Structure formats: structure tokens, C-alpha cells
């Protein structure tokens, strides 16, 4: 009897799992077919795309970015008359770049996606995964609203391929005002003064710079700024077009300074094992064991959303001037626009997607961005911002003699990787500045030769 009951129960269990299996698999199939539909249309970029859903890939996984994406997506889906809806698919920053490449290589590129412009954007365009939007752009009011420098960054071979929407982000130094006051440190105006300040901090057991360099691009910030203060932007531009070289004096100077600073204890111990994505550099700032951090100005928003109270303690200053007065010390390293939306769709769908992208410049949206520590790349940004630190950053950006896009975004990916790897080794003291520059130059030459 007992055995019978058990066998009946088992049968029932089996049947129910079978049914459950059928149920879920049938829904899966429908989903897959719609996805497959979109993909095919993407690959051929045809207008016969039946899917009325625009897939939007971005990096807004947390904080203000996520709120912003959700806000604009919701606004578009509620107000649009185009018949399309947008679905946002956020991915964490550093995995995003790789995920996008994998998607493209298998022909499953999303309808619209964000990038940081520069080298990778050019690769996407060359591969046919970004369509020009000049007609839509010229017909809209975006050229009047957006900063010219930001539109310039979205161009490739004189055509516009992206809508800048997120931020004006320049690298500068955040510092803890309380620590500076405690040890009587003035905001440094020159690199010599900065070094004096660092020496005072080290003497008092405080790490001068919070840096998490497992992520590599974080350490590159110091390299780029030091090189720009030593030789301006000309050596870099020449090295890129092949008329100069990365073995120029200013890059050697940057490498030597970094190693000198590492040896003097200006950076946290184990700097190459700390990860920016895990927040291990801001952790040092919050623990008040580090006094400064040279990073992009998007951190204003992060500091504020982490702790409004702690953010009050922080100040900002641009990277101090070099010894040579003939070099323009207002030059900044950064990006005007930060994130750009690209369009892998055409005709009606592209128009709808463009309508979505232009909503990022609506008054209420840019006001939201300005209130949350961002500098939207719009001409009237200064009027929207009330926060003193953000105002200061915006002023530095608008007064800058030039803004150079981050090396790792500006350069072709293979060259960028060579730079990031060798720069990390500089911090680890496992490579001399000469070796690092040579590696950097060799990668650039190889790329230039291939292009010929």
C-alpha cells in the first residue's frame, strides 16, 4: 500500500514538472523569436523591422546613472507617439565594453547603445554597427542646445554618429579639506607644491592619493596629466599621427614622476591589486586614510549619492601647473559628453530612437542631472548648477585651452591596451619609463603601419 502511494506521488510529481517545463519553454520560444527578429533586422539594417521595441544598452547599473536612464525611458514610453517603446539593458562599466564586442561579433548588436566615443566608436562605425544621424540632428534643436565640443567628439570622418548626453567629465583632484586644514596645507598651484603637500601627508601617516589601479585606466589619469603639464598636447597628437613618438621627453617625465611618487609612498600599498569597480579607492577617501584622488569629475555625483554629509568635506582643484610656464596649464584631460548614444537602426526606428536620445536634453532631465552632481553637455549648463564644486569644475572645463579625450578612449583599442598595461607596470615598478614608452610607441607604430 505504502509503495503504491509513493509511486503515485512520484508520477504526479513527474507529470507536474513536465507540464511546468512545457509552460516555461513555450514562453521562452516566443521571446526568442522576437529577439531573433530584431537581430536579423539589425544585421541587415533594413526598415522591414517589425519589432516595436528599441533595445538600449548602457552602463547605468547604479546610482544617479540608473535613475537617469529609468527616468528618460519611462518618460519616452509614456509620452511618445511613434509607437515604439524603449527597453533599457544596463551592464556594469568595465564588462560593458567586452559584452558589446561579443554582441556585435555574433550579430546581436542592440538598436541603440552608449559608448565613450574615440577609438572604439570608430571601430563600431567601420564595422557598420553605427549609422550616421546628420539629417535628424540638423532637423532637431540639439545643435543649438549641446556644447559644440561635445558634438565634435561624436563625429567621425565629418559625419555625426552619436548624441552626447551624460556629462562633462574632466580629470582633476578631489581633496579632503579637513585633512588639508589640519596639516596647514594650501591648495597646490604647481607640481612642486603638490609634492610638498604629499610629503607633509606622508610624514603624518596619510596616503596622499587614493588610487585603485587593478582597473588600469585609473593610474593612466596621473600619466596623462603629468605628460600634458610637461609638454602640452602637441607631443601626444604628433605621436598619434606618426610624426612624433611616445618616447618623447614628456612621456618619460610622466613615467619617472609616477615611479618617484610610488617610491615616496604617495600611493596606497598594493595599488595594482585595488579595484575601482569595487570602490576600493573611494573607500580610502571615506576612511580618511587618503587625502586626495585624481579622477574624473563624475565622482562628484558618486560622493554625493554615497554620503551627502561626507561630500561637504571635499574640495576640487585642477591638476597643478608644471614648472615650464610656456606650457598651457589650463589644458584638461577628459571628455565633453562622456557617454554617447549610437544608433544601429534606420528610418522610422532610428527616428524614434533619436526622439528618445534627444529627451536627455529636456529641461527637467538636465535639471535632474545638474542637481545630482553631473554637468550635462548643454550650453546653458552653468545656469542650472548651484553646487559650488560642480560650478568650479565646469568653469575649469569651459576655460580650458583644450580638452584631450582620455588616451584609452581616444586611441585604437590595441594601442590603448598597450598603454594601460605598461602604465600599470610603471606603478608596480616592474618596468622602467623607457621600456613602457617603447612598448607604447611600438603598438602605435604597428597600428599606423597597418593603416597604410
Amino acid at each position, binding site marked *: 500500500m505504502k509503495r503504491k502511494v509513493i509511486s503515485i506521488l512520484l508520477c504526479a510529481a513527474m507529470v507536474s514538472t513536465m507540464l511546468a517545463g512545457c509552460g516555461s519553454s513555450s514562453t521562452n520560444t516566443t521571446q526568442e523569436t522576437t529577439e531573433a527578429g530584431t537581430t536579423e533586422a539589425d544585421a541587415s539594417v533594413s526598415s522591414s523591422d517589425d519589432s516595436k521595441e528599441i533595445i538600449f544598452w548602457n552602463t547605468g547599473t547604479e546610482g544617479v546613472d540608473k535613475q537617469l536612464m529609468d527616468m528618460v525611458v519611462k518618460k519616452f514610453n509614456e509620452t511618445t507617439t511613434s509607437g515604439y517603446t524603449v527597453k533599457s539593458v544596463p551592464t556594469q562599466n568595465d564588462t560593458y565594453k567586452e559584452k558589446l564586442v561579443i554582441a556585435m561579433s555574433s550579430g546581436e548588436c542592440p538598436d541603440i547603445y552608449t559608448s565613450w566615443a574615440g577609438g572604439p566608436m570608430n571601430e563600431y562605425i*567601420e564595422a557598420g554597427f553605427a549609422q550616421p544621424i546628420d539629417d535628424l540632428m540638423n532637423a532637431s534643436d540639439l545643435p543649438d542646445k549641446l556644447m559644440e565640443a561635445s558634438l565634435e567628439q561624436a563625429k567621425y570622418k565629418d559625419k555625426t554618429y552619436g548624441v552626447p548626453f551624460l556629462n562633462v567629465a574632466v580629470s582633476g583632484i578631489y581633496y579632503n579639506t579637513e585633512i588639508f586644514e589640519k596639516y596647514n596645507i594650501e591648495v597646490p598651484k604647481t607640481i612642486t607644491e603638490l609634492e610638498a603637500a604629499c610629503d607633509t601627508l606622508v610624514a603624518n601617516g596619510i596616503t596622499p592619493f587614493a588610487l585603485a589601479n587593478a582597473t588600469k585606466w585609473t593610474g593612466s589619469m596621473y600619466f596623462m596629466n603629468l605628460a600634458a603639464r610637461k609638454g602640452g598636447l602637441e607631443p601626444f597628437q604628433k605621436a598619434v599621427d606618426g610624426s612624433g613618438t611616445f618616447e618623447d621627453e614628456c612621456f618619460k617625465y610622466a613615467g619617472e614622476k609616477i615611479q618617484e611618487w610610488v617610491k615616496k609612498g604617495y600611493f596606497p600599498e598594493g595599488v595594482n*591589486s585595488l579595484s575601482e569597480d*569595487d570602490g*576600493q579607492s573611494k573607500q580610502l577617501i571615506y576612511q580618511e586614510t587618503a587625502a586626495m584622488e585624481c579622477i574624473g569629475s563624475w565622482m562628484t555625483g558618486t560622493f554625493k549619492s554615497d554620503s551627502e554629509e561626507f561630500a561637504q568635506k571635499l574640495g576640487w582643484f585642477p591638476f597643478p601647473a608644471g614648472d615650464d610656464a610656456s606650457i598651457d596649464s589650463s589644458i584638461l584631460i577628459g571628455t565633453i559628453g562622456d557617454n554617447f548614444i549610437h544608433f544601429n537602426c534606420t528610418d522610422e526606428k532610428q527616428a524614434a530612437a533619436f526622439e528618445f536620445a534627444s529627451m536627455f536634453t529636456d529641461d527637467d532631465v538636465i535639471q535632474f542631472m545638474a542637481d545630482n552632481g553631473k554637468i550635462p553637455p548643454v550650453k546653458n549648463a552653468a545656469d542650472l548648477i548651484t553646487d559650488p564644486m560642480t560650478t568650479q569644475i565646469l568653469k575649469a572645463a569651459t576655460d580650458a585651452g583644450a580638452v584631450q579625450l582620455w588616451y584609452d578612449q581616444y586611441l585604437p583599442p590595441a594601442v590603448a591596451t598597450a598603454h594601460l598595461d605598461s602604465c600599470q607596470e610603471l606603478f608596480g615598478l616592474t618596468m622602467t619609463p623607457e621600456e613602457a614608452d617603447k612598448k607604447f610607441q611600438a603598438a602605435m607604430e604597428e597600428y599606423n603601419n597597418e593603416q597604410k
Partner: protein
Amino acid sequence: MEQKASLAIQRQRATRKAAAIFLAPVMILLVVYIFYPIIDTFITSTYKWNGISANKTFIGLGNWSTLIHDMNFWIAFKNNMIIMILSIIIQIPLGLAMATFLDFGGKKLNIFKVLWFIPLLMSSVAIGFLFSYALATNGGIFSTISKLFGGGNIDLLGNPKFALYTVIGVICWQFAPFYMVYCMAGYSNISTDVFEASRIDGATRGQYFWNVALPLMIPSLKSAAILSMVGSLKYFDLIYVMTGGGPGTSTELMATYMYKNSFSQFNMGYGSAIAGGMFILISLIALFTMKILNRNAED
């Protein structure tokens, strides 16, 4: 006579047909997911291709000659070999020791069986994150202990000298339980008669282990060694999460190097050549080891 022969042939045909039908599902899976990708990888490795654009340029063996002269690839291969050797030396004896302890201890030690098995149940990515915090220079376990005794911070993952060995430690922590289970299965295959007979003959536990149990377990230990070997040669996930191959090239493995080239540097052709190189090297090493192990068995 004639009829009989045709009957035999008929039967043979029917068997073949049945075999084909029964093998078809497995064969289709193998072809689609194993053979086709391998062949396609080798084909892709003869192109210069960024992975996303439609135009590929055929460059013959260009990627392969670069690969042979690429120091970074050989450094990665060397790192793989270090992981392989240390994994076999550490994991299998450790697993065997744990299994022996549990076997001798009997039921009262079941709690250890559960505790020691836990690492294997966690995903590599979770373990990677867990240990990158636990081993952090600032506020990690080792640094905190060292500070307690008046020392400084200890940098395990950021120092190119220790990074690889630190990661190997974590890999062993993760996989030793697997070999524990493997050896426990080995023990349960030894019949109790053997154990009882050796006890009656007056063997101590030590003697039983070294002279009776260990020789009987050699076949399972051999296959464990091969598993560990192949596993460490294609290792990827934990390293990718914990160090990303850095600092510099100190923990770069063939698999992480392949991934970087294919997906971060837009060099799918060269990435495929690395994958092809891995395939050849791993196959050669596995064949070579199996031959050595089998020859010993024949002696």
C-alpha cells in the same frame, strides 16, 4: 548456407541502423558544439579580423608566426604550467589526506565532510570576489593579522612576485574538496575484506594505507591527475575576476590572454590563433601524460 549468411548481414545492417539512430543525438551535439567551433577557430586564425566588421583579410599563417614569437603567450603558458604542477602536487595529496581522515574517522566526522565540501559548491566568480576582499592589502585578513603583530600591510595580489602563488592557493582551496570526494569514492571501491584481512594479518593503519590502500587507489589518482592537469591548463574564471591577468603579465594565462586579444583589443583573428595554440598544447600534454601513465601500468 546462403540464406544464413544473408540473415547475418541483415542483422548486422539492422544493428548498424539502430546504432546510428541511438548515436545521432550525441553526434549532432558534438558536431555543433565541439567539432564545428574547433574547426571554425582554426579557420578564423588565418584571418586578420577585428571580430565585428564584415571584411576579414586572409593572412595565412601570419597570426601563427606572431604567436610563436609572442613572449606574452609563452609567459602565459609558463604560468599555466606552474599552476598545473602545483595544482597536482597540492590538491591531490590534500584531497587524499582529507579522504583518508574521513575514512578512518567514520561517521562521527561527517560534519567535516560537509564543511570541506562547501568551497566546491560556490561559483568561481563568487570565490574570486570573496578572496579579492579577504586578501586585500588594505583591511584584508593577512594585513589585519600582520598589523596586530606590529607589521605592515601585506600585498599579495598586487605584487608580481606573489600574485600567481596567491591565486594558486585560492584555486587549491576551491578544488581540493573535489579530489577529496574522488578519493572517498576510491576508498569505497576497496572491499572491506581487504581491510579486514590486513587487520587480521596485524597491519597498522599506516601500513594499511601505504601498502594496501594506496596501491589500490593508483588508477583513480591517475585519472584525478589528468583531470587536474587539463583543468589548470584551460583555467580562466577565478584569475579573470581576481587579477585580470595582472599586475603586468604576472598572472596572465593562455585563456585570459586569448580573451583580452579577442574581446578587448578587437583582434579576433589573433585571439583565435591563441585558442588554436592552446588546443594543440593541451592535447599534446594530455596525450603525453596519458602515454606515460599507461606505460607504467603495463609494467
